[in-house]
């Protein structure tokens, strides 16, 4: 079981205690932020619509998560890809970002609401439906 899953399993209170209470494992602040991000990305409130979550590429447990549509860690509310699905790029960009569309995707609502530019580029043969 990876560390992040362990944190998730102890719940939010445990998460806080684990990271900011004692910090017995001596995690760095960067790791704490990663863990918090991971935690947020998996606890979705009912009715939460898919929303692009990240600004720049994140690093989870030493692995860089690319800015690609298919990557669940980049979304809160799940990866949008269905008829009438919502894809909301909401004010998360602090600078121009390029997002790779890795495969055809179907959405009903596509919203770009960020003062910084979002650029969607295709992986080979990718289309946005």
């Amino acid at each position, binding site marked *: 079981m990876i560390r992040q899953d362990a944190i998730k399993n102890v719940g939010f209170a445990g998460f806080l205690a684990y990271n900011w209470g004692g910090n017995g494992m001596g995690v760095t602040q960067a790791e704490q932020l990663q863990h918090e991000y991971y935690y947020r990305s998996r606890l979705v409130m009912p009715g939460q619509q898919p929303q692009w979550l990240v600004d720049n590429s994140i690093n989870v447990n030493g692995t860089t998560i690319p800015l690609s549509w298919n990557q669940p860690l980049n979304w809160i509310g799940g990866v949008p890809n269905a008829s009438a699905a919502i894809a909301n790029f909401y004010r998360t960009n602090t600078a121009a970002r390029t997002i790779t569309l890795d495969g055809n995707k179907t959405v009903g609502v596509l919203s770009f609401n960020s003062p910084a530019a979002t650029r969607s580029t295709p992986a080979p043969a990718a*289309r946005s439906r």
Partner: protein
Amino acid sequence: MNSGAGTSSISVPQGTHLLGVQLNIVSNTNIDLAGGLTLNGGISTTGARTINRTGVGTLNIGTTQTYAAGTTFNANGGTTNFSTSGGTNLALNINATVVFNATQTLGNVSVGSGGNGRLTVGGNRVINTGTFTMTGGKLNLTNNDMIARGGTLGSWNGTAYTGITGYVQSGLGTGSWNGATGIVTTESTATTSILTTLAVAKASDALGVTATETTTWSGQSVNGNAILVMYTWGGDADLNGELNGDDYFWIDSNVLQSGSVFGYHFGDFNYDGDINGDDYFILDSNILQAQGSPPMGGASLALVPEPTSALCGGIACAALFAPPPSRLIESDRVQLQRRADARHGALREIAERNLHSTLVDLVMRMTLD
């Protein structure tokens, strides 16, 4: 974009964003932009879909457009830039600002109130549409051309032209292409002088092709039914981009039928419903500068100011605009002489009937020529 039976939406509340991937419209889609959106990966539709463009922002369509038959694009807000052709399956309704940066082959074009379509300056661009209608707004061709494959040329109804000729007449306004609505040009050689204009004619008249024949005009294949609108020299009756004896032939052949024959091609170069000395004046004024090549834009042209009425009283006007023979090639000189002789005879006949006093003045001018 697919919302099943519902309507899909693309919104840009803020920022400038780019879709570098193919956008396929499966459901009717609203595109509401306060910011900017560029489509650089292509846009297509599956089935007859309606795309409603709203908001004050800018939509740039930069690459391939592949629409299914029956697709409608309603430009109802902001600015939409088309840098590629929409294709013959697209019906485009212009109710806001639409800028064409490339030749457009379209199914239908309609300009409504508040519509402001514009072909960017290039000289080699064309709007080639099946039908063309206006209920308001403007279409600015700048120094480009338009073809309405199934359009209506229109005729004189006693007070104004109808059809596409009527749109051009409306755009001409008081003579400087300042009409509140209609087809216009903003080229300075048209707005501040009579050197250039928008000429309109049916292809069967101007090009001599039948409805079942095709020929190439402005880089496009047209048959005799097509209505042609060309940015060209004032007086270019046959819409070939130059002034020569053929243009004199058309006005000479119809001046006696003024009142029963109408249209730019037949000599009504100022769209006032008459074929008279005013139209000859346009042709005579421009003949020196308008031989051999079409106008390519205001910057490269020397303006010929429209003379005052005092200057154009006869002798002074003729002296001012008389073409020096050395500037004409021999064949044109022979043609011009032949046409001038015919014109002289026709005008003398009219003058003898005391039909119009101003035409007597033209006879004097031609006598002096």
